[in-house]
Protein backbone atom coordinates (compact mmCIF):
# COMPACT_ATOMS: atom_id res chain seq x y z
CA UNK A 1 0.00 0.00 0.00
CA UNK A 2 2.19 2.85 -1.27
CA UNK A 3 0.39 6.13 -1.80
CA UNK A 4 2.20 8.88 -3.71
CA UNK A 5 1.60 12.41 -2.49
CA UNK A 6 3.14 15.88 -2.75
CA UNK A 7 1.84 16.79 0.71
CA UNK A 8 2.46 14.09 3.34
CA UNK A 9 0.55 15.79 6.15
CA UNK A 10 -2.61 16.46 4.15
CA UNK A 11 -2.28 13.02 2.62
CA UNK A 12 -2.42 11.45 6.09
CA UNK A 13 -5.63 13.38 6.81
CA UNK A 14 -7.06 12.34 3.42
CA UNK A 15 -6.24 8.68 3.99
CA UNK A 16 -7.80 8.80 7.45
CA UNK A 17 -10.99 10.07 5.80
CA UNK A 18 -10.83 7.41 3.10
CA UNK A 19 -10.52 4.70 5.73
CA UNK A 20 -14.23 5.31 6.30
CA UNK A 21 -15.01 4.25 2.72
CA UNK A 22 -15.47 0.50 2.58
CA UNK A 23 -15.64 -1.98 -0.25
CA UNK A 24 -19.21 -3.26 0.32
CA UNK A 25 -18.39 -6.92 -0.47
CA UNK A 26 -15.28 -7.20 1.68
CA UNK A 27 -16.09 -4.68 4.40
CA UNK A 28 -12.48 -3.50 4.05
CA UNK A 29 -11.70 0.18 3.47
CA UNK A 30 -10.30 1.43 0.14
CA UNK A 31 -6.99 2.48 1.74
CA UNK A 32 -6.15 -0.91 3.26
CA UNK A 33 -7.41 -2.59 0.13
CA UNK A 34 -4.74 -0.63 -1.75
CA UNK A 35 -7.08 1.09 -4.18
CA UNK A 36 -5.60 4.56 -3.65
CA UNK A 37 -2.51 5.26 -5.77
CA UNK A 38 -1.98 8.98 -5.40
CA UNK A 39 -3.32 11.97 -3.45
CA UNK A 40 -1.98 15.38 -4.52
CA UNK A 41 -2.83 18.88 -3.35
CA UNK A 42 -2.30 22.00 -5.47
CA UNK A 43 -0.24 24.87 -4.06
CA UNK A 44 -3.15 27.25 -3.80
CA UNK A 45 -4.81 24.68 -1.58
CA UNK A 46 -8.14 24.54 -3.31
CA UNK A 47 -7.84 21.35 -5.37
CA UNK A 48 -7.24 17.71 -4.50
CA UNK A 49 -6.29 15.15 -7.11
CA UNK A 50 -6.81 11.44 -6.38
CA UNK A 51 -5.70 8.58 -8.60
CA UNK A 52 -7.29 5.29 -7.63
CA UNK A 53 -8.04 1.88 -9.05
CA UNK A 54 -10.58 -0.93 -8.65
CA UNK A 55 -9.92 -4.60 -7.89
CA UNK A 56 -11.23 -5.39 -11.36
CA UNK A 57 -12.19 -3.26 -14.34
CA UNK A 58 -15.98 -2.99 -14.62
CA UNK A 59 -16.29 -3.75 -10.92
CA UNK A 60 -20.06 -3.39 -10.38
CA UNK A 61 -19.31 -1.23 -7.34
CA UNK A 62 -16.79 0.94 -9.19
CA UNK A 63 -18.95 3.99 -9.73
CA UNK A 64 -20.16 3.91 -6.13
CA UNK A 65 -16.62 3.62 -4.74
CA UNK A 66 -15.28 6.51 -6.83
CA UNK A 67 -18.20 8.72 -5.83
CA UNK A 68 -17.77 7.71 -2.17
CA UNK A 69 -14.05 8.65 -2.25
CA UNK A 70 -14.92 12.01 -3.74
CA UNK A 71 -17.65 12.72 -1.16
CA UNK A 72 -15.48 11.65 1.78
CA UNK A 73 -12.69 14.06 0.73
CA UNK A 74 -15.10 16.91 0.01
CA UNK A 75 -16.51 16.48 3.50
CA UNK A 76 -13.05 16.45 5.13
CA UNK A 77 -11.49 19.27 3.07
CA UNK A 78 -14.48 21.53 2.99
CA UNK A 79 -14.63 23.84 0.00
CA UNK A 80 -11.91 22.14 -2.03
CA UNK A 81 -12.47 20.73 -5.45
CA UNK A 82 -11.80 16.98 -5.60
CA UNK A 83 -10.78 15.34 -8.83
CA UNK A 84 -10.77 11.52 -8.88
CA UNK A 85 -9.05 9.74 -11.72
CA UNK A 86 -9.54 6.03 -12.24
CA UNK A 87 -6.43 4.20 -13.37
CA UNK A 88 -5.61 0.61 -14.23
CA UNK A 89 -1.94 1.28 -14.81
CA UNK A 90 -0.67 -0.59 -12.94
CA UNK A 91 -3.64 -2.91 -12.39
CA UNK A 92 -4.52 -3.68 -8.79
CA UNK A 93 -3.02 -6.85 -7.34
CA UNK A 94 -3.17 -8.64 -3.99
CA UNK A 95 0.23 -7.30 -2.90
CA UNK A 96 -1.36 -3.88 -2.54
CA UNK A 97 -3.47 -4.99 0.44
CA UNK A 98 -1.95 -3.60 3.65
CA UNK A 99 -0.87 -5.88 6.51
CA UNK A 100 -3.83 -4.58 8.50
CA UNK A 101 -6.08 -5.39 5.55
CA UNK A 102 -4.66 -8.92 5.31
CA UNK A 103 -5.22 -9.40 9.03
CA UNK A 104 -8.83 -8.24 8.59
CA UNK A 105 -9.41 -10.67 5.73
CA UNK A 106 -7.73 -13.50 7.64
CA UNK A 107 -10.11 -13.18 10.57
Amino acid sequence: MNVISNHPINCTIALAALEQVNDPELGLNVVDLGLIYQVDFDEAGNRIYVRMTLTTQFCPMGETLVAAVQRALEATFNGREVEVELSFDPPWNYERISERGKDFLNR
Partner: protein
Amino acid sequence: MSTAFPKAHFRHTAASAVVPFYLYAAFSFLISAALLLVNSPAFREHYFHPHTLALTHLMALGWGTMVILGASHQLVPVLTERPLYSMRLAHLSFILAALGIPLLVYGFYVFDMGWPAKWGGRLILLSVLVYLVNLLKSTGRGREMNVHAVFIITATGWLFLTAFLGLTLVYNFTYPFLPKETLEYLPLHAHAGILGWFLLLVTGVGSRLIPMFLISKYQHNRLLWVIYAGINGGLLLYLLSFFIFPGLPFMYPGAVILISFGLFVFYLSGVYRARIRKQVDEPMKVSLLSVAMMLLPILLLLLLAGWRYSGTTHARYTLLYGFVIFFGWITAIILGMTFKTLPFIIWNKIYHEKAGRVKTPNPKDLYSEMLFNAMALTYLAGFLCAGAGIFGEGWLLLRLGAGLLLLSAILYNLNIWKTCLHKPLV
Protein backbone atom coordinates in the same frame (compact mmCIF):
# COMPACT_ATOMS: atom_id res chain seq x y z
CA MET B 1 -15.76 18.74 -7.94
CA SER B 2 -15.01 16.48 -10.84
CA THR B 3 -14.00 12.99 -11.78
CA ALA B 4 -11.77 11.93 -14.63
CA PHE B 5 -12.13 8.39 -15.85
CA PRO B 6 -13.11 6.52 -18.97
CA LYS B 7 -16.89 6.93 -18.97
CA ALA B 8 -17.35 3.47 -20.47
CA HIS B 9 -16.21 1.96 -17.18
CA PHE B 10 -19.30 3.21 -15.49
CA ARG B 11 -21.97 2.21 -17.94
CA HIS B 12 -23.26 -0.31 -15.47
CA THR B 13 -26.15 -2.61 -16.10
CA ALA B 14 -29.31 -1.16 -14.58
CA ALA B 15 -31.15 -3.25 -11.99
CA SER B 16 -34.13 -3.48 -14.37
CA ALA B 17 -32.09 -5.78 -16.65
CA VAL B 18 -31.38 -8.15 -13.78
CA VAL B 19 -34.02 -8.11 -11.04
CA PRO B 20 -37.06 -9.21 -13.14
CA PHE B 21 -35.12 -12.33 -14.16
CA TYR B 22 -34.42 -13.18 -10.50
CA LEU B 23 -38.03 -12.67 -9.45
CA TYR B 24 -39.33 -14.73 -12.35
CA ALA B 25 -36.83 -17.49 -11.57
CA ALA B 26 -37.77 -17.49 -7.88
CA PHE B 27 -41.45 -17.89 -8.75
CA SER B 28 -40.60 -20.70 -11.18
CA PHE B 29 -38.66 -22.50 -8.44
CA LEU B 30 -41.67 -22.19 -6.15
CA ILE B 31 -44.05 -23.57 -8.78
CA SER B 32 -41.57 -26.35 -9.65
CA ALA B 33 -41.29 -27.45 -6.02
CA ALA B 34 -45.10 -27.39 -5.74
CA LEU B 35 -45.39 -29.46 -8.95
CA LEU B 36 -42.87 -31.95 -7.58
CA LEU B 37 -45.02 -32.37 -4.47
CA VAL B 38 -48.37 -32.54 -6.26
CA ASN B 39 -47.21 -34.67 -9.16
CA SER B 40 -44.80 -36.99 -7.38
CA PRO B 41 -46.84 -40.06 -8.58
CA ALA B 42 -45.60 -39.18 -12.09
CA PHE B 43 -42.11 -40.08 -10.83
CA ARG B 44 -43.20 -43.73 -10.55
CA GLU B 45 -43.61 -43.79 -14.30
CA HIS B 46 -41.31 -43.30 -17.27
CA TYR B 47 -39.45 -39.99 -17.40
CA PHE B 48 -41.26 -39.18 -20.65
CA HIS B 49 -44.37 -38.36 -18.63
CA PRO B 50 -46.10 -35.05 -19.47
CA HIS B 51 -45.87 -33.79 -15.88
CA THR B 52 -42.19 -34.72 -15.61
CA LEU B 53 -41.45 -33.01 -18.93
CA ALA B 54 -43.29 -29.89 -17.77
CA LEU B 55 -41.41 -29.85 -14.47
CA THR B 56 -38.04 -30.41 -16.15
CA HIS B 57 -38.59 -27.51 -18.56
CA LEU B 58 -39.81 -25.21 -15.81
CA MET B 59 -36.70 -26.00 -13.76
CA ALA B 60 -34.31 -25.76 -16.73
CA LEU B 61 -35.76 -22.63 -18.32
CA GLY B 62 -37.86 -20.80 -15.74
CA TRP B 63 -35.46 -21.37 -12.86
CA GLY B 64 -31.93 -22.15 -14.10
CA THR B 65 -31.82 -20.28 -17.39
CA MET B 66 -33.76 -17.19 -16.27
CA VAL B 67 -31.55 -16.57 -13.25
CA ILE B 68 -28.40 -17.12 -15.33
CA LEU B 69 -29.58 -14.73 -18.07
CA GLY B 70 -30.38 -12.07 -15.49
CA ALA B 71 -27.15 -12.50 -13.53
CA SER B 72 -25.10 -12.52 -16.72
CA HIS B 73 -26.42 -9.08 -17.69
CA GLN B 74 -24.67 -7.87 -14.55
CA LEU B 75 -21.65 -10.18 -14.79
CA VAL B 76 -20.81 -9.98 -18.49
CA PRO B 77 -19.27 -6.50 -18.11
CA VAL B 78 -17.16 -7.81 -15.21
CA LEU B 79 -16.04 -10.86 -17.17
CA THR B 80 -15.45 -9.22 -20.53
CA GLU B 81 -14.38 -5.80 -19.23
CA ARG B 82 -16.83 -4.08 -21.54
CA PRO B 83 -20.27 -2.62 -20.82
CA LEU B 84 -23.46 -4.42 -21.75
CA TYR B 85 -24.33 -3.47 -25.34
CA SER B 86 -28.07 -2.88 -24.99
CA MET B 87 -30.51 -2.61 -22.12
CA ARG B 88 -33.41 -2.81 -24.56
CA LEU B 89 -32.23 -6.17 -25.85
CA ALA B 90 -31.88 -7.35 -22.23
CA HIS B 91 -35.49 -6.33 -21.54
CA LEU B 92 -36.67 -7.89 -24.80
CA SER B 93 -35.01 -11.22 -24.04
CA PHE B 94 -36.78 -11.20 -20.66
CA ILE B 95 -40.22 -10.49 -22.14
CA LEU B 96 -39.86 -13.15 -24.83
CA ALA B 97 -38.70 -15.83 -22.38
CA ALA B 98 -41.23 -14.81 -19.73
CA LEU B 99 -44.06 -15.31 -22.22
CA GLY B 100 -42.64 -18.41 -23.88
CA ILE B 101 -41.78 -20.51 -20.81
CA PRO B 102 -45.32 -20.83 -19.34
CA LEU B 103 -46.72 -21.65 -22.78
CA LEU B 104 -44.17 -24.41 -23.32
CA VAL B 105 -44.61 -25.79 -19.80
CA TYR B 106 -48.40 -25.77 -20.17
CA GLY B 107 -48.04 -27.51 -23.54
CA PHE B 108 -46.03 -30.29 -21.92
CA TYR B 109 -48.25 -30.53 -18.85
CA VAL B 110 -51.41 -31.20 -20.87
CA PHE B 111 -49.28 -32.74 -23.63
CA ASP B 112 -50.66 -30.46 -26.30
CA MET B 113 -47.93 -30.04 -28.89
CA GLY B 114 -50.13 -27.61 -30.81
CA TRP B 115 -49.97 -23.84 -30.47
CA PRO B 116 -49.00 -23.54 -26.75
CA ALA B 117 -45.86 -25.65 -27.05
CA LYS B 118 -45.00 -24.31 -30.51
CA TRP B 119 -45.41 -20.64 -29.58
CA GLY B 120 -43.63 -21.28 -26.29
CA GLY B 121 -40.69 -22.84 -28.14
CA ARG B 122 -40.58 -20.06 -30.75
CA LEU B 123 -40.60 -17.29 -28.16
CA ILE B 124 -37.89 -19.00 -26.10
CA LEU B 125 -35.70 -19.50 -29.18
CA LEU B 126 -36.15 -15.84 -30.08
CA SER B 127 -35.27 -14.81 -26.54
CA VAL B 128 -32.04 -16.82 -26.67
CA LEU B 129 -31.20 -15.27 -30.04
CA VAL B 130 -31.73 -11.74 -28.68
CA TYR B 131 -29.56 -12.57 -25.66
CA LEU B 132 -26.85 -14.00 -27.92
CA VAL B 133 -26.80 -10.87 -30.12
CA ASN B 134 -26.52 -8.67 -27.02
CA LEU B 135 -23.70 -10.85 -25.71
CA LEU B 136 -21.76 -10.84 -28.97
CA LYS B 137 -22.15 -7.09 -29.32
CA SER B 138 -21.02 -6.65 -25.70
CA THR B 139 -17.88 -8.72 -26.08
CA GLY B 140 -16.97 -6.96 -29.32
CA ARG B 141 -14.19 -7.81 -31.70
CA GLY B 142 -10.58 -6.94 -32.34
CA ARG B 143 -9.31 -7.60 -28.82
CA GLU B 144 -7.68 -10.61 -27.29
CA MET B 145 -10.48 -12.93 -26.28
CA ASN B 146 -10.99 -13.36 -22.58
CA VAL B 147 -11.32 -17.05 -21.63
CA HIS B 148 -14.41 -16.40 -19.48
CA ALA B 149 -16.12 -14.53 -22.32
CA VAL B 150 -15.42 -17.45 -24.66
CA PHE B 151 -17.01 -19.84 -22.14
CA ILE B 152 -20.17 -17.70 -21.99
CA ILE B 153 -20.47 -17.16 -25.74
CA THR B 154 -19.97 -20.86 -26.50
CA ALA B 155 -22.40 -21.85 -23.74
CA THR B 156 -25.03 -19.52 -25.22
CA GLY B 157 -24.38 -21.08 -28.64
CA TRP B 158 -25.17 -24.48 -27.10
CA LEU B 159 -28.29 -23.00 -25.48
CA PHE B 160 -29.45 -21.76 -28.87
CA LEU B 161 -28.82 -25.21 -30.34
CA THR B 162 -30.70 -26.83 -27.44
CA ALA B 163 -33.70 -24.53 -27.90
CA PHE B 164 -33.63 -25.06 -31.67
CA LEU B 165 -33.51 -28.84 -31.29
CA GLY B 166 -36.28 -28.66 -28.67
CA LEU B 167 -38.54 -26.71 -31.02
CA THR B 168 -37.71 -29.14 -33.82
CA LEU B 169 -38.80 -32.02 -31.59
CA VAL B 170 -42.07 -30.23 -30.77
CA TYR B 171 -42.74 -29.94 -34.51
CA ASN B 172 -41.75 -33.57 -35.01
CA PHE B 173 -44.61 -34.61 -32.72
CA THR B 174 -47.23 -33.13 -35.04
CA TYR B 175 -45.42 -33.42 -38.40
CA PRO B 176 -42.96 -36.31 -38.07
CA PHE B 177 -40.08 -35.58 -40.42
CA LEU B 178 -37.01 -36.72 -38.48
CA PRO B 179 -35.55 -40.15 -39.37
CA LYS B 180 -35.74 -41.45 -35.79
CA GLU B 181 -38.40 -41.39 -33.06
CA THR B 182 -38.63 -38.13 -31.06
CA LEU B 183 -37.71 -39.98 -27.87
CA GLU B 184 -34.36 -40.99 -29.37
CA TYR B 185 -33.37 -37.35 -29.81
CA LEU B 186 -34.14 -36.45 -26.21
CA PRO B 187 -30.65 -37.32 -24.83
CA LEU B 188 -29.12 -35.07 -27.50
CA HIS B 189 -31.42 -32.17 -26.60
CA ALA B 190 -30.89 -32.75 -22.88
CA HIS B 191 -27.09 -32.99 -23.02
CA ALA B 192 -26.64 -30.00 -25.31
CA GLY B 193 -28.51 -28.09 -22.59
CA ILE B 194 -27.01 -29.69 -19.48
CA LEU B 195 -23.39 -29.89 -20.58
CA GLY B 196 -23.19 -27.26 -23.31
CA TRP B 197 -25.24 -24.58 -21.58
CA PHE B 198 -25.22 -25.20 -17.83
CA LEU B 199 -21.87 -26.94 -17.27
CA LEU B 200 -19.89 -24.73 -19.63
CA LEU B 201 -21.46 -21.57 -18.28
CA VAL B 202 -21.07 -22.50 -14.62
CA THR B 203 -17.39 -23.40 -15.10
CA GLY B 204 -16.71 -20.23 -17.12
CA VAL B 205 -18.45 -17.88 -14.72
CA GLY B 206 -17.45 -19.77 -11.55
CA SER B 207 -13.78 -19.73 -12.51
CA ARG B 208 -13.95 -15.93 -12.50
CA LEU B 209 -16.36 -15.20 -9.66
CA ILE B 210 -15.15 -17.68 -7.05
CA PRO B 211 -11.56 -16.26 -7.06
CA MET B 212 -13.06 -12.75 -6.94
CA PHE B 213 -15.23 -13.48 -3.91
CA LEU B 214 -12.50 -15.41 -2.09
CA ILE B 215 -9.80 -12.90 -3.16
CA SER B 216 -7.53 -15.61 -4.41
CA LYS B 217 -4.15 -15.10 -6.03
CA TYR B 218 -4.50 -18.30 -8.04
CA GLN B 219 -4.57 -17.89 -11.81
CA HIS B 220 -4.31 -20.63 -14.42
CA ASN B 221 -5.81 -19.56 -17.74
CA ARG B 222 -4.16 -22.41 -19.61
CA LEU B 223 -5.95 -24.91 -17.40
CA LEU B 224 -9.24 -23.11 -18.06
CA TRP B 225 -8.67 -23.44 -21.81
CA VAL B 226 -8.04 -27.19 -21.33
CA ILE B 227 -11.32 -27.48 -19.36
CA TYR B 228 -13.09 -25.53 -22.10
CA ALA B 229 -11.69 -27.86 -24.78
CA GLY B 230 -12.56 -30.92 -22.67
CA ILE B 231 -16.23 -30.04 -22.11
CA ASN B 232 -16.78 -29.03 -25.73
CA GLY B 233 -14.70 -31.96 -27.00
CA GLY B 234 -16.71 -34.44 -24.89
CA LEU B 235 -19.96 -32.96 -26.13
CA LEU B 236 -18.83 -33.00 -29.78
CA LEU B 237 -17.71 -36.60 -29.35
CA TYR B 238 -21.18 -37.38 -28.07
CA LEU B 239 -22.74 -35.70 -31.13
CA LEU B 240 -20.43 -37.72 -33.37
CA SER B 241 -21.42 -40.92 -31.60
CA PHE B 242 -25.07 -40.01 -32.11
CA PHE B 243 -24.99 -39.10 -35.79
CA ILE B 244 -21.91 -40.74 -37.34
CA PHE B 245 -20.56 -43.52 -35.08
CA PRO B 246 -23.61 -44.97 -33.33
CA GLY B 247 -21.52 -47.85 -32.01
CA LEU B 248 -19.18 -45.57 -30.04
CA PRO B 249 -19.76 -46.26 -26.33
CA PHE B 250 -21.11 -43.31 -24.38
CA MET B 251 -18.33 -43.99 -21.85
CA TYR B 252 -15.81 -42.12 -24.04
CA PRO B 253 -17.46 -38.69 -24.14
CA GLY B 254 -18.56 -39.29 -20.53
CA ALA B 255 -14.95 -39.89 -19.47
CA VAL B 256 -13.76 -36.72 -21.25
CA ILE B 257 -16.41 -34.70 -19.40
CA LEU B 258 -15.47 -36.36 -16.09
CA ILE B 259 -11.78 -35.50 -16.60
CA SER B 260 -12.72 -31.89 -17.45
CA PHE B 261 -14.80 -31.73 -14.31
CA GLY B 262 -11.86 -33.14 -12.31
CA LEU B 263 -9.64 -30.38 -13.72
CA PHE B 264 -12.22 -27.76 -12.74
CA VAL B 265 -12.22 -29.12 -9.19
CA PHE B 266 -8.40 -29.00 -9.26
CA TYR B 267 -8.59 -25.36 -10.41
CA LEU B 268 -11.04 -24.49 -7.64
CA SER B 269 -8.93 -26.22 -5.01
CA GLY B 270 -6.00 -24.04 -6.14
CA VAL B 271 -8.23 -20.97 -5.85
CA TYR B 272 -9.41 -22.01 -2.40
CA ARG B 273 -5.90 -22.73 -1.08
CA ALA B 274 -4.53 -19.41 -2.35
CA ARG B 275 -7.40 -17.32 -1.00
CA ILE B 276 -6.58 -14.23 1.03
CA ARG B 277 -10.04 -14.04 2.55
CA LYS B 278 -10.04 -16.94 4.98
CA GLN B 279 -13.61 -16.67 6.18
CA VAL B 280 -16.07 -18.19 3.74
CA ASP B 281 -19.63 -16.89 4.13
CA GLU B 282 -22.74 -19.09 4.00
CA PRO B 283 -23.83 -18.28 0.41
CA MET B 284 -20.30 -19.06 -0.75
CA LYS B 285 -20.33 -22.38 1.16
CA VAL B 286 -23.57 -23.39 -0.60
CA SER B 287 -22.04 -22.36 -3.96
CA LEU B 288 -18.95 -24.48 -3.27
CA LEU B 289 -21.17 -27.38 -2.18
CA SER B 290 -22.86 -27.20 -5.57
CA VAL B 291 -19.49 -27.94 -7.21
CA ALA B 292 -19.33 -31.20 -5.26
CA MET B 293 -22.92 -31.87 -6.29
CA MET B 294 -21.85 -31.74 -9.95
CA LEU B 295 -20.12 -35.06 -9.37
CA LEU B 296 -23.42 -36.89 -8.70
CA PRO B 297 -24.94 -36.53 -12.19
CA ILE B 298 -21.60 -37.28 -13.88
CA LEU B 299 -21.23 -40.51 -11.89
CA LEU B 300 -24.85 -41.46 -12.56
CA LEU B 301 -24.32 -40.81 -16.26
CA LEU B 302 -21.30 -43.12 -16.30
CA LEU B 303 -23.31 -45.76 -14.41
CA LEU B 304 -26.14 -45.52 -16.92
CA ALA B 305 -23.69 -45.72 -19.81
CA GLY B 306 -21.58 -48.53 -18.40
CA TRP B 307 -24.10 -50.94 -16.93
CA ARG B 308 -27.12 -52.58 -18.45
CA TYR B 309 -30.15 -52.13 -16.24
CA SER B 310 -33.68 -53.35 -16.81
CA GLY B 311 -35.95 -50.90 -18.59
CA THR B 312 -37.71 -49.65 -15.46
CA THR B 313 -34.50 -49.33 -13.43
CA HIS B 314 -32.84 -47.49 -16.30
CA ALA B 315 -35.79 -45.11 -16.55
CA ARG B 316 -35.77 -44.52 -12.77
CA TYR B 317 -32.03 -43.82 -12.71
CA THR B 318 -32.49 -41.45 -15.65
CA LEU B 319 -35.15 -39.66 -13.63
CA LEU B 320 -32.75 -39.49 -10.68
CA TYR B 321 -30.07 -38.15 -13.06
CA GLY B 322 -32.38 -35.29 -14.08
CA PHE B 323 -33.39 -34.68 -10.46
CA VAL B 324 -29.81 -34.36 -9.16
CA ILE B 325 -28.99 -31.97 -11.99
CA PHE B 326 -31.91 -29.59 -11.66
CA PHE B 327 -32.87 -29.87 -7.98
CA GLY B 328 -29.28 -30.62 -6.94
CA TRP B 329 -26.38 -28.98 -8.73
CA ILE B 330 -28.20 -26.11 -10.51
CA THR B 331 -30.48 -25.25 -7.60
CA ALA B 332 -27.60 -25.28 -5.09
CA ILE B 333 -25.46 -22.92 -7.15
CA ILE B 334 -28.39 -20.54 -7.67
CA LEU B 335 -29.40 -20.57 -3.99
CA GLY B 336 -25.83 -19.66 -3.05
CA MET B 337 -24.98 -17.20 -5.80
CA THR B 338 -28.29 -15.29 -5.57
CA PHE B 339 -27.21 -13.86 -2.24
CA LYS B 340 -23.75 -13.00 -3.56
CA THR B 341 -25.20 -10.97 -6.44
CA LEU B 342 -28.77 -9.71 -5.88
CA PRO B 343 -28.09 -7.78 -2.63
CA PHE B 344 -25.26 -5.90 -4.40
CA ILE B 345 -27.52 -4.90 -7.27
CA ILE B 346 -30.18 -3.57 -4.88
CA TRP B 347 -27.57 -1.98 -2.57
CA ASN B 348 -26.00 -0.17 -5.49
CA LYS B 349 -29.38 1.15 -6.58
CA ILE B 350 -30.35 2.40 -3.11
CA TYR B 351 -27.09 3.51 -1.54
CA HIS B 352 -25.11 4.65 -4.56
CA GLU B 353 -25.71 8.33 -3.76
CA LYS B 354 -25.11 7.86 -0.03
CA ALA B 355 -21.86 5.89 0.16
CA GLY B 356 -19.00 8.02 1.48
CA ARG B 357 -21.44 10.58 2.89
CA VAL B 358 -23.05 8.53 5.65
CA LYS B 359 -22.48 5.07 7.06
CA THR B 360 -24.51 2.66 4.98
CA PRO B 361 -25.47 -0.95 5.75
CA ASN B 362 -23.55 -3.67 3.90
CA PRO B 363 -25.17 -5.53 1.00
CA LYS B 364 -25.32 -8.67 3.15
CA ASP B 365 -27.56 -6.77 5.58
CA LEU B 366 -30.25 -6.57 2.91
CA TYR B 367 -31.27 -10.22 3.26
CA SER B 368 -32.03 -12.30 6.31
CA GLU B 369 -29.22 -14.64 7.29
CA MET B 370 -31.67 -16.62 9.42
CA LEU B 371 -34.00 -17.18 6.45
CA PHE B 372 -30.98 -18.12 4.34
CA ASN B 373 -29.78 -20.73 6.85
CA ALA B 374 -33.29 -22.18 7.24
CA MET B 375 -33.60 -22.29 3.44
CA ALA B 376 -30.23 -24.03 3.06
CA LEU B 377 -31.09 -26.65 5.70
CA THR B 378 -34.57 -27.44 4.34
CA TYR B 379 -33.12 -27.53 0.84
CA LEU B 380 -30.38 -30.03 1.73
CA ALA B 381 -32.78 -32.23 3.73
CA GLY B 382 -35.37 -32.07 0.94
CA PHE B 383 -32.85 -32.88 -1.76
CA LEU B 384 -31.49 -35.88 0.14
CA CYS B 385 -34.97 -37.23 1.01
CA ALA B 386 -36.40 -36.81 -2.49
CA GLY B 387 -33.24 -38.18 -4.13
CA ALA B 388 -33.24 -41.22 -1.83
CA GLY B 389 -36.96 -41.64 -2.51
CA ILE B 390 -36.44 -41.80 -6.28
CA PHE B 391 -33.41 -44.07 -5.91
CA GLY B 392 -35.07 -46.57 -3.58
CA GLU B 393 -38.64 -46.19 -4.82
CA GLY B 394 -39.60 -44.81 -1.42
CA TRP B 395 -42.50 -42.68 -2.58
CA LEU B 396 -43.37 -41.37 0.87
CA LEU B 397 -39.77 -40.23 1.22
CA LEU B 398 -40.04 -38.50 -2.15
CA ARG B 399 -43.16 -36.66 -0.98
CA LEU B 400 -41.45 -35.64 2.27
CA GLY B 401 -38.45 -34.41 0.28
CA ALA B 402 -40.71 -32.52 -2.14
CA GLY B 403 -42.46 -30.88 0.82
CA LEU B 404 -39.13 -29.75 2.28
CA LEU B 405 -38.01 -28.44 -1.11
CA LEU B 406 -41.27 -26.47 -1.34
CA LEU B 407 -40.58 -25.00 2.09
CA SER B 408 -37.07 -24.12 0.95
CA ALA B 409 -38.48 -22.42 -2.18
CA ILE B 410 -40.91 -20.39 -0.03
CA LEU B 411 -38.03 -19.24 2.23
CA TYR B 412 -35.95 -18.37 -0.83
CA ASN B 413 -38.80 -16.29 -2.27
CA LEU B 414 -39.36 -14.50 1.04
CA ASN B 415 -35.69 -13.62 1.25
CA ILE B 416 -35.33 -12.29 -2.25
CA TRP B 417 -38.49 -10.20 -1.88
CA LYS B 418 -37.10 -8.89 1.40
CA THR B 419 -33.94 -7.90 -0.49
CA CYS B 420 -35.77 -6.33 -3.42
CA LEU B 421 -38.17 -4.37 -1.18
CA HIS B 422 -35.40 -3.05 1.07
CA LYS B 423 -36.09 0.51 2.24
CA PRO B 424 -33.12 2.87 2.74
CA LEU B 425 -31.93 2.83 6.36
CA VAL B 426 -30.00 6.11 6.05
